[in-house]
Structures are given as structure tokens and as C-alpha cells.
């Protein structure tokens, strides 16, 4: 059971998408796991052959539990199951002896994966409804909040009779744990800079006039690209702090904080943002938002982020100083674009201005370097056409 974020303690296996004997390629989706963040598609990290499935659908197990054994494709099939734990088994799988069986392991519908929006999951937890017993009426049979409420009406009475305690708000608890850990362990420093967005806005407007609806951009796309490009100059802000040392990110994978309606948030990553153009970044971010809402993110999206961005400008916030998502070492916050008096070449003009903030881990970087990072974002946004 992979850890899909610092805030995850356990997950429920929903469905296997591969069978023993199937060849696996890095990036293949092997299983679906149900977490507080929705149904997550679990990807394979290396090539091989699925040797044996250890955990069955419906079982809830702690992070670190072996779900399946993957054999290196170079090595011949193990003659007996007893050998399956020998060196032929991928070392990426860390065995954890304790396996907690799911409560009465309710069989999932034969239809396969459980689709439910995070809001529906939250509602289900709040109401103590077992999603596996709910019929979805949303897109592709997804379970909606309304479905959960309908189901709750019949369940509530039974629960009351049984004296069951109200289910805890799982996602809230998970966020509380991650954020408490961040504030306990990470010595944050905070910087802010105001950026003249005139050039970026003008460029965006001109681009959108030329572009068909499907290719139109929002300001978040050039912002993402500017952050990704600036990180190349300041690699100490891009990566993880693990066991007392900084580990630079293998790529620039930018987690985008996405608020879920009704509370809670997820921060899935846009992979290799520094190597993608602005149009690609826009498409990927739109897709992430849509899938975060529908509850169908992938494991790599939840685990790979090397930095996070948060945009509270939509809500009219001037500037947001975020809490770093451990084990990352930095978080960039965007405020709203607001018209303000601004001095341009000695005269006061009305300009669209945005405050960009940086919360960074002082163990991994210093304020001086953080300042250079924010200046780089400013410099890049003055020439949006070059992004």
C-alpha cells in the first residue's frame, strides 16, 4: 500500500486491474485503492511480471503493507510460492507484517471500481454510509452526494439501533495530521513580492483572442511555467527533506492545491512542468482539477510533487502564506490580480498587480535564495511570450 501523501495512514484495495502472470510496464495502472482523497489509480514503478496478489479487494491495510509481489521480468518464474519472497521479488515492495483485515470485507460490486466524488465520500463518512452499497447516478455511474444522502436515509436507523459512533471526517483529520507535522518540524520562512502583471495580462488576452475555446489559457498556466523555470535556477527549493537531508527533486513536479467543494483539498502534481509549454500545462491543470473533483487521481500524481502552488486569488485573497506539505521544502502562493497605483519609469500608473509569496523550509534554503527565486518569477512574467 503506497503512501499517497504524508497524511495517509491506510487504504482499501478496491480492485485489481492486472492478474497474476500479466506483464507490467512502468506506469501501468495495476490497482485501484480507495483513500480519503478518492479512488486512486496505483501505478507500477518498474517493469516486471505480477507474481502474486496478496491483498484482496475490500481489505483495508496500513501504508507499507505488501499488496502484491512483482517479479523482475529477467528472472524466470518462481517454481513454488515459497520462493516468491526470495530476491527475485522487487525490492521496491517493503513488507510489513501486520495486515489489518477490512471490517467484514464488504464485497464490491462486480462492475469493478468504485467511482465517487470526494464530496460524496466525505458525506458518506459523515453519515456513516458504506459507499459499496450505494448506487451511483452521476457520470459513469459515479456516486454523488445526493446518492449518499438517499442511501443514508435507510442506513441511519440501523446505525442508531446499533449505537455506532459517527464516522470521523477522514480528510479533515488527514489534513490536520500533515499540517501539524509541517508546523512542528519545518522551520518556515516567508517572503512576498508584488509583481506587475500588465505584460502577462496583455499577452494572455491577445493569445485567447487567437485561440479556440479548447486551447484558451488562464493566468495559472504562465504562472506555473514561470515557477517551474525559476526552480531550475533555485534547485534547493525543489525537492524533499527526508531524514535530516535535502534530496533534490528528480524533476520539477508541481503540486497544485485544489480545493474540494464542501471542504478539504488535494494537491496532485503536474509532472515535469519545466519541460512543458504553457498550452500543455493549461490542459494538464484543467484535467487535474476535473479528476480531483471526480475522485480519479493517479498514485504518482499524489506522491511525486516536489513543490506546491496555491492560488487563492479567485477568492479575492491579496496574499496567502501557505504551510509546506511535508516532505516538500517550499510552497508558492498566488494572490489576486488587483489594479493598484504603480510607479512605471517615474510616473504613477494604474497597473494590475499580484502578490506572490514563498513559504520555504529554512533547513533547505535561506531567505536570500528565496528572494532570488521570487525575483526570477517576476522577471519571467515580464516576458510571457518567452515562457
Amino acid at each position, binding site marked *: 500500500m503506497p503512501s499517497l501523501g504524508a497524511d495517509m495512514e491506510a487504504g482499501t484495495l478496491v480492485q485489481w486491474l492486472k492478474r497474476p502472470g500479466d506483464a507490467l510496464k512502468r506506469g501501468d495502472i495495476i490497482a485501484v485503492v480507495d483513500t480519503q482523497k478518492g479512488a486512486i489509480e496505483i501505478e507500477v514503478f518498474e517493469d516486471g511480471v505480477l507474481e502474486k496478489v496478496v491483498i484482496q479487494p475490500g481489505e483495508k491495510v496500513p501504508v507499507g503493507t505488501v499488496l502484491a509481489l512483482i517479479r523482475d521480468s529477467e528472472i524466470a518464474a518462481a517454481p513454488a510460492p515459497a520462493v516468491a519472497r526470495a530476491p527475485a521479488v522487487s525490492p521496491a515492495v517493503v513488507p510489513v507484517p501486520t495486515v489489518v483485515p477490512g471490517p467484514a470485507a464488504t464485497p464490491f460490486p462486480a462492475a469493478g471500481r468504485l467511482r465517487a466524488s470526494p*464530496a*460524496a465520500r466525505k458525506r458518506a463518512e459523515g453519515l456513516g454510509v458504506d459507499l459499496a452499497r450505494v448506487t451511483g447516478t452521476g*457520470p459513469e455511474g459515479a456516486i454523488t452526494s445526493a446518492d449518499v444522502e438517499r442511501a443514508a436515509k435507510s442506513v441511519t436507523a440501523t446505525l442508531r439501533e446499533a449505537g455506532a459512533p459517527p464516522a470521523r471526517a477522514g480528510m479533515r483529520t488527514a489534513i490536520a495530521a500533515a499540517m501539524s507535522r509541517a508546523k512542528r518540524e519545518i522551520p518556515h520562512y516567508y517572503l512576498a513580492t508584488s509583481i506587475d502583471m500588465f505584460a502577462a495580462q496583455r499577452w494572455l488576452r491577445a493569445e485567447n483572442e487567437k485561440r479556440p*475555446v479548447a486551447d484558451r489559457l488562464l493566468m495559472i498556466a504562465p504562472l506555473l511555467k514561470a515557477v517551474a523555470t525559476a526552480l531550475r535556477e533555485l534547485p534547493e527549493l525543489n525537492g524533499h527533506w527526508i531524514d535530516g537531508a535535502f534530496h533534490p527533486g528528480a524533476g520539477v513536479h508541481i503540486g497544485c492545491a485544489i480545493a474540494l467543494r464542501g471542504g478539504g483539498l488535494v494537491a496532485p502534481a503536474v509532472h515535469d512542468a519545466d519541460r512543458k509549454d504553457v498550452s500543455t500545462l493549461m490542459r494538464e491543470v484543467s484535467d487535474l482539477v476535473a479528476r480531483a473533483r*471526480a475522485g480519479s487521481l493517479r498514485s504518482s500524481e499524489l506522491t511525486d510533487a516536489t513543490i506546491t502552488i496555491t492560488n487563492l486569488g*479567485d477568492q479575492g485573497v491579496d496574499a496567502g502564506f501557505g504551510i509546506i506539505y511535508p516532505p516538500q521544502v517550499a510552497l508558492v502562493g498566488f494572490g489576486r490580480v488587483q489594479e493598484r497605483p504603480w510607479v512605471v519609469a517615474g510616473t504613477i500608473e494604474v497597473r494590475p498587480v499580484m502578490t506572490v509569496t514563498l513559504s520555504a523550509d529554512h533547513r533547505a534554503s535561506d531567505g536570500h535564495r528565496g528572494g532570488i527565486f521570487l525575483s526570477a518569477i517576476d522577471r519571467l512574467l515580464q516576458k510571457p511570450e518567452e515562457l
Partner: protein
Amino acid sequence: MTADAVKKVIIEALSRIAPEIDPASIRPEIELRQQLDLDSIDFLNLILALHERLGIEIPESDYSKFSTLDSAISYLTARSS
């Protein structure tokens, strides 16, 4: 297309973007984005879905016509053949 048919398309698009909303609870005269807590990306996805479903070009300068369900219905009804 009739206003009712257009409304159905909009509701369907909104249900995909915000699966947790109850279509019956949408108040047609109140700001959609506030009412349904849609952010700018949700809103862009809505415009895109309507464009794809109805084949209507929607320039960025007309985005303000989509502030409420009522105004969106009249805009799209007028422009659909």
C-alpha cells in the same frame, strides 16, 4: 434549440464539472460561480463543455454572459440554430 433543451445541456455539463451539486437546487438568477463554488478552471471547463456540446463559438469577451443560469440560457438559445 429551445431554452429547455439548452438548460438541460448546461445542467448536464455542470453535473460533470461539479458532481456533488444537486441540479434542482440551482437558483437561475444567482451568480453561478458563487452559488456552486466554481473556480476559474471549473468555469473554463464549463465553457469548453458547452462549446463542444452545442458547437457554439464563445469568445472570451462573452464570458460575462455566463454569470447566471438564466443569462447563460438566453445567450446560448439566441446563438443556437
